[in-house]
């Protein structure tokens, strides 16, 4: 087996220290080592966007990073956005606008949208569609997702 590496990474505000094999993907590390199964694994080729997490605040594909590369950095997963008693405005808006059916793609959409709405508090429909163009949803046809983003933007501006 390859040498193990020490990883000190802050996930959702908690510092974790783990030993990992270099080939362990960030997505698998989050799910299997840390038990944070909110990050979903779809295509594992960087296409579908389901595994999107925030790496130092920027959305990235966690299936295209090694866990060892997060040493000394910060990761936010969907679990870090809010919980059932205190949903993030974007989560609340997805709920209210019926922006999910099976929900598999949702964590990736949410993590993509958090920094997007922080930078674009009043986005046009075109800007929204462009922002979510790296996330695939097979249920909704995107219309309700776009509406949820508009609703979330309204909530966050208020």
């Amino acid at each position: 087996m390859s040498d193990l590496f020490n990883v000190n990474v802050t996930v959702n505000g908690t510092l974790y220290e783990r030993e990992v094999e270099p080939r362990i993907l960030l997505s698998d590390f989050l799910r299997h080592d840390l038990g944070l199964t909110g990050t979903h694994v779809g295509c594992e080729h960087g296409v579908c966007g389901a595994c999107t997490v925030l790496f130092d605040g920027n959305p990235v594909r966690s299936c295209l990073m090694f866990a060892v590369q997060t040493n000394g950095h910060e990761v936010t997963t969907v679990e870090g956005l809010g919980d059932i008693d205190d949903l993030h405005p974007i989560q609340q808006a997805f709920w209210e606008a019926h922006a999910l059916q099976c929900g598999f793609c949702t964590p990736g959409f949410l993590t993509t949208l958090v920094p997007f709405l922080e930078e674009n508090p009043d986005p046009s429909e075109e800007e929204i569609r462009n922002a979510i163009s790296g996330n695939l949803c097979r249920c909704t046809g995107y219309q309700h997702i776009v509406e949820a983003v508009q609703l979330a933007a309204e909530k966050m501006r208020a």
Partner: protein
Amino acid sequence: MLEAHPGLPEFDYIKPKTLAEASRFLADHAGEARPLSGGTDIFVRMRDGVWKDKYLVDIKGLDGTDEIVYDPSKGLTIGAAVAMNRVSAHPDVKKHYAALADAVDKVASYQLRNRATIVGNICNASPAGDTIGACLLLGGALDVHGVDGARTEPLASFFEGPGSTALKPGDVVTSLRLPLPPKGLVGRYYKLGRNKSSDLSIIGVTVVGFPDKRAASGYRIKLALASVAPTPLVVAQVEEILAAKPVTEQTIAEAAQAAMDACTPIDDVRASARYRKMMARNLSQKALTEIWNQLGR
């Protein structure tokens, strides 16, 4: 035995502290070690079993490679580790190198561009590389650190075939340099994909143009094509035609035909060779017309 999760093959992860250390390791393990930058291509190739390297050498952030600098007297320097989104968001890139900013924004998706790099796109040497055409047309050159020290590789002679470049074992590209843009430069990247985002290009057309008193037509307009040949293709005939003759609807059609004739595409999962050739002509015609309008005709 079938593994529940195929994952990636085993390899050793090397994180050198200096460029010299990186070059030495890569040279000593030629054929079994690969530099890792953004990794967005490497992961996919390794997962699919195409690449089976024993060592991945993480070169992200070595010795000042994480900087992007525009110097009004020299031009633009993009460090090898600079993620694509940082390039297209840079005000000087948008202002002076529009073709590059446009091409960068059409690579895969936003999330991917937070990891992927332009230097990685170039070194990967895919004929489909979206940013390569702009770098070629803008006169780009690479700063390379090898076992014998630093040197410069002009992009014009860099590409040898799909995935094959002038780089030798031990070479680490540290930055891409683009000279100052000519006055009045305009440019764009046109990408034809199966969808608007995420996919590789069926074909890609990069055009740049600027007023040039030395050209008979008064303009210098250049065009490069992606996904139509074993290497990214600059169609020199387009520049020649539109420099020698007045730029009109007819000469643009002639130049677009020259672009089509220069193509040697293949059939693959995205499109047939025949379709690619036809689209190379049509999209070139559209691109040249729009650039011509932008130049103020």
